């Protein structure tokens, strides 16, 4: 087995509206923050994994280097939808594990404030002559005519499908999940929103795609997060303080969706998450019962429910009962999304897969202040990018 890799430094910017900085400015704030947190500089970094979806083909890693340090090291600009940040991190981890270098930097950044609904795009006027086009031989736009391409609508169906399979699920249950995450966010000064909502306010808010109302959807916002990873051998040469604050990456797993009936009709976000979780638990030698906290991909309230099951935080089919038991509130058995989650902390897409790891590290280092989960030793961070990709990382407090 190859040697362990550690998080040496990590940083998350304030999420929200950030007109003070452009995309690379936010990436630089996160990267310089992570380097300073780890007590190292760009001269120590041997590889960079970077992600930014809204920038299209622009090489965000090199654009960042041109602001904070053109050292000539290889850059991997990655794109994996909402799992882009986790993919950038995994790239840096793989390079260190492979022995290509002993320290790597991963960065994810997005400017998304005010982006509105993420959907298949505006419907253009129908053509003058019906002509079959594309892989479905479509003569007209199909979004809205043959189902929906909006993210709130897709994930609403994913939650409803779980309800159909196992029962015990209704609009109020999903709204209560959102109530939890918004309540958690009041303790997170870096969250986009820190407002607590009542159940009635959540259920009575603007309906986006039943059963997801507006506060049950992830918040589009600006933000960045970055992490410095280091090999075990290099870490041993660093100071006692650096070793004490280092967080062990006990598992780093990335999966895609295996073929199953229906998976090209409605995305199946379940199996690839379950596969990633199983592989991660096995690699880390821990089980779901060992987790002190979990940050999972609540892009919509309907998504959080299914991932309780996919991450095996409950018996199969038991997600609604798990939630109703109070287990996933911050004072429960397995606190989930104590950061406020994507619904409240916000979801700057490419930053999310590193920001969730920052949250876990913050607790494992006993540095989370008011929202600290006392005595946290093991945590799990999960993201899903539709398409699909799933990243699961299990992190453990340093024994040093």
């Amino acid at each position, binding site marked *: 087995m190859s040697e362990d890799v550690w998080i040496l430094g990590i940083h998350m910017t304030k999420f929200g509206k950030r007109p003070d900085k452009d995309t690379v400015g936010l990436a630089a704030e996160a990267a310089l923050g992570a380097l300073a947190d780890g007590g190292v500089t760009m001269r120590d970094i041997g590889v960079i994994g970077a992600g930014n979806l809204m920038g299209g083909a622009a090489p965000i890693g090199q654009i960042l280097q041109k602001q904070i340090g053109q050292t000539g090291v290889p850059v991997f600009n990655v794109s994996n939808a909402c799992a882009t940040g986790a993919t950038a991190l995994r790239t840096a981890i793989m390079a260190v594990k492979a022995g290509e270098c002993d320290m790597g930097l991963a960065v994810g950044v997005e400017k998304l404030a005010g982006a509105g*609904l993420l*959907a*298949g*795009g*505006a*419907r*253009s006027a*129908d*053509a*003058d*002559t*019906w002509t*079959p086009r594309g*892989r*479905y*031989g*479509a*003569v*007209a736009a*199909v*979004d*809205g*005519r*043959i*189902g*929906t*391409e*909006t993210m*709130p*609508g897709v994930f*609403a*169906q*994913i939650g*409803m*499908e779980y*309800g*159909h399979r196992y029962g015990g699920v209704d*609009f109020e249950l999903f709204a209560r999940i959102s109530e939890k995450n918004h309540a958690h966010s009041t303790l997170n000064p870096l969250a986009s929103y820190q407002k607590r909502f009542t159940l009635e306010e959540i259920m009575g808010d*603007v*309906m*986006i*795609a*039943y*059963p*997801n109302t507006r506060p049950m959807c992830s918040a589009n916002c600006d933000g960045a997060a970055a992490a410095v990873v280091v090999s075990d051998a290099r870490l041993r040469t660093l100071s006692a303080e650096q070793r004490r604050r280092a967080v062990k990456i006990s598992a780093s797993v990335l999966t895609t969706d295996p*073929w199953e*009936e*229906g998976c*090209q*009709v*409605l995305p199946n976000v379940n199996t690839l998450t379950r596969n990633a979780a199983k592989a991660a638990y096995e690699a880390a030698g821990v089980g779901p019962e060992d987790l002190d906290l979990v940050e999972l991909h609540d892009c919509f309230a309907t998504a959080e429910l299914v991932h309780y099951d996919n991450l095996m935080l409950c018996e199969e089919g038991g997600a609604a009962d798990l939630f109703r038991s109070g287990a996933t509130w911050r004072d429960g058995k397995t606190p989930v999304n104590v950061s406020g989650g994507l619904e409240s902390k916000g979801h700057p897409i490419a930053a999310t897969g590193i920001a969730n790891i920052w949250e876990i590290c913050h607790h494992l280092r006993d540095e989370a202040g008011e929202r600290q989960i006392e005595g946290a030793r093991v945590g799990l961070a999960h993201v899903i990018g539709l398409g699909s990709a799933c990243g699961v990382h299990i992190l453990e407090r340093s024994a040093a």
Partner: protein
Amino acid sequence: MTAQIPIVDYLVLEPEPHLVAHSCRGCGARYFDHRDACASCSGTEFDEVDVATTGEVRAFTIVSMAAPGIPVPFVAALVDCDGTSVRANIVNVPPDPEHVTLGMKVRLATESIGADSAGTEAIGFGFEPLEGATK
């Protein structure tokens, strides 16, 4: 009779409207899009198979906010047609959770989505309740 064309080529209008899938000859996996190969077994030979015209709603959402130009609200759903998953709108029923339910039995229904400059009428499809459709 006005010339007609289906909104997508996997909707076949004659003799009665129904959906047709590409079924992998090797493993039976079904697809509605044009294929390069099978995503399940990588086989490259397919047969055309008719999909059942009745089914059960396995998941749905009522879309109240969509991209510009798309009329709302509408019901988008995943319909299980005798083992084949189909994406479609639920039509001819009020778009609310009192009238659309999980497990509801539905059947294929077609409707005109308009004529082009040559007068050809495009035909769309959805699923309507087996019981109590409003038209």
